[in-house]
């Protein structure tokens, strides 16, 4: 591929591990160019050893987040023209996560905290087989899950406009990009803090009346490193690329856990 370099700008990319440094590259300027386009250009035309992570390129998968001119951003939906301060772009790995190489960070800790915050849906017991096939004369939406034996578990009907459903809706569209985690001061200061994304996820499940693990979930998020470590700086809300407000979710968890504690539902 022949690239015209008549109109170019300088981009600095982090190279190496935590002890690495920024390297500068001259890249062509294009209309509607995203930061991810720039990184991809460098990798494909200037230095094939550059490591970075992306998948969907349309803001759905949450894998391409990086630090762009000092702010954590989703690079596939960030136009260079929006962030180029004085025509220069500096791209580094996300903060608060160990650097694997170049622009790729190790997300293990981030997702481990999702699990520590009980971020997985737990169906009521006895657990029915997942998605039992409809039988003759029956559609998928029968409103009753058939168990494998005598313990059929009904599926709760959730009114779309119920307060709990609305609260879950407001937080449900997280794409796991870790931008909030990288932007959070408390994560930087307190390594045991679960972080905004994990707590936001917990809040969606706390509001899911079909979930059967809320006592354990509330105990997990009410412990040291849980929601009470949050200082309400609201960096997560400020930086969230999809416009969520994890701070509000964490505030909801604080209220819910206090109520549980005062009722004796949470041992602390």
């Amino acid at each position: 591929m022949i690239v015209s370099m008549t109109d170019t700008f300088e981009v600095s990319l982090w190279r190496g591990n935590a002890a690495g440094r920024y390297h500068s590259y001259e890249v062509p300027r294009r209309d509607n160019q995203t930061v991810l386009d720039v990184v991809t250009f460098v990798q494909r035309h200037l230095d094939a050893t550059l490591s970075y992570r992306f998948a969907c390129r349309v803001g759905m998968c949450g894998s391409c987040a990086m630090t762009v001119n000092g702010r954590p951003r989703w690079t596939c939906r960030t136009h260079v023209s929006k962030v180029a301060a004085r025509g220069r772009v500096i791209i580094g790995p996300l903060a608060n996560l160990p650097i694997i190489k170049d622009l790729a960070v190790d997300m293990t800790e981030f997702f481990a905290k999702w699990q520590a915050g009980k971020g997985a849906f737990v169906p009521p017991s006895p657990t029915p087989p997942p998605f039992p096939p409809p039988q003759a004369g029956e559609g998928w939406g029968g409103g009753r899950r058939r168990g494998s034996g005598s313990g059929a578990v009904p599926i709760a009907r959730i009114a779309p406009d119920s307060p709990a459903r609305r609260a879950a809706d407001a937080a449900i569209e997280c794409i796991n990009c870790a931008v909030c985690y990288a932007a959070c001061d408390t994560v930087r200061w307190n390594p045991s803090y679960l972080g905004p994304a994990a707590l936001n996820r917990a809040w969606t499940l706390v509001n899911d009346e079909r979930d059967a693990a809320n006592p354990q979930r509330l105990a997990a998020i009410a412990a040291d490193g849980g929601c009470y470590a949050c200082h309400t700086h609201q960096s997560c809300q400020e930086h969230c690329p999809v416009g969520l407000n994890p701070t509000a979710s964490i505030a909801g968890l604080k209220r819910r856990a206090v109520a549980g504690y005062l009722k004796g539902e949470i041992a602390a």
Partner: protein
Amino acid sequence: MNVRLYVWQRLTAAVIVPLALVHIGVIFYATRHGLSAAEIFGRTRGSIAWGMFYALFVAAVSIHVPIGLRTVLIEWTALDRHYCDGTAIAFGILLALAGLRAAAAVVLP
């Protein structure tokens, strides 16, 4: 911070706020009226009300402050978590002793 510490910190804050306002109001009153130390002691010594007021104030502060101090130590130092707990508890005890001693000097006859 866990939910137990959070509840204690909020409850003690709710106690401290009105007591602190009264305390500051008393300071303004004493200075604006030019009360001498002897005149102040004349009103506070032997007063059960002022004794209970400041005993409650000191107790609330002695619980509230160490909880916050513990968080500061956890976030701003590399100290072991148990060391942070111990330091915060020791500081709370120090606050309680110093505060109760000061309150006793003001209210005991």
